[in-house]
């Protein structure tokens, strides 16, 4: 448990010196999370492949060009991008041993994530009112599956983040909560990367 004291002194400097079992155990869990992210890359890859194959299959119905409202999508993009940055700042605060800063930046990240989900759900509801649903055509089935799967990931991340903030509030910054924050921050950056490809492949190519 040598690390519980480390955040207050020279933060992180000792990390390289002590290779106690606990530390190695936590770093293996971070590696395990990388493995999960890579399986998620493949999951999204199959959805992107499906979407790309079906990008003209609108069955004579509404086309993306008629339906997409770019201002909302652009807002979603910058909100998620900013939240990726703020989750990184939260990790920096954690390594300084600043528990309040860590929780504060996690709250900002979660609020940005919630705004993203709010905008996306509003976008989906507006689409349904315009007569576009997951059953309209192969194109829209692929669209709602791909974009919805990303939205679901963000929603799960939000619940996870709130639970983690409660745990940090109770236990403080320990090697275990440190590892958990590192992992959720990786997850959050990953979702931002996926969104960039959604923006490019779905929305930008859709309105071209």
């Amino acid at each position, binding site marked *: 448990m040598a690390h519980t004291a480390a955040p207050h002194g020279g933060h992180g400097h000792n990390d390289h010196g002590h290779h106690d079992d606990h530390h190695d155990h936590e770093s293996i869990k971070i590696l395990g999370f990388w493995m999960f992210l890579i399986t998620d890359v493949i999951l999204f890859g199959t959805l992107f492949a499906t979407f790309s194959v079906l990008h003209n299959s609108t069955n004579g119905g509404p086309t993306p060009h008629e339906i997409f409202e770019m201002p909302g999508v652009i807002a979603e993009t910058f909100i998620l991008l900013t939240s990726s940055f703020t989750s990184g700042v939260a990790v920096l605060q954690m390594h300084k041993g600043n528990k309040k800063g860590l929780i504060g930046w996690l709250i900002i990240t979660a609020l940005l994530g919630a705004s993203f989900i709010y905008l996306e759900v509003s976008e989906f509801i507006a689409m349904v009112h315009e007569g576009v649903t997951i059953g309209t055509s192969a194109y829209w089935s692929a669209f709602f599956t791909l974009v919805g799967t990303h939205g679901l990931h963000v929603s799960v991340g939000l619940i996870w983040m709130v639970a983690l903030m409660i745990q940090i509030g109770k236990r403080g910054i320990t090697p275990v909560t440190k590892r958990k924050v590192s992992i959720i921050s990786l997850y959050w950056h990953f979702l931002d990367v996926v969104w*960039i490809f959604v923006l490019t492949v779905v929305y930008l190519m859709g309105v071209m």
Partner: protein
Amino acid sequence: MANPNTHGHGHDEHESHGSLKSYVIGFVLSIVLTILPLVVVLNDMMDRTPTLIFILIMAILQFVVQLFFFMHLREEKKPRYNVMALIFGIVILITVVAGSIWIMAYNQVG
């Protein structure tokens, strides 16, 4: 607080968790790499094929920026199993996406 670069172990120059500077650089680059394709597409500045290539390159660059500046890919301890797994994942990703598009593009012929 001491300068992180002066510690004696010397096997890596940076802290393994990045600095505010690297996050800010990554954030600014990400914003630029997001605005450029938006401007090009929304103003119809290029023909279809150059636009497609341009926006895909911007997305891939942004992926690289986030991997290095936010996810600290280079700062992992060796051996970097996560990098190896990531490369493997990307190979599968490209195979699935490009393979599907390729096969289905010729599917109409019958």
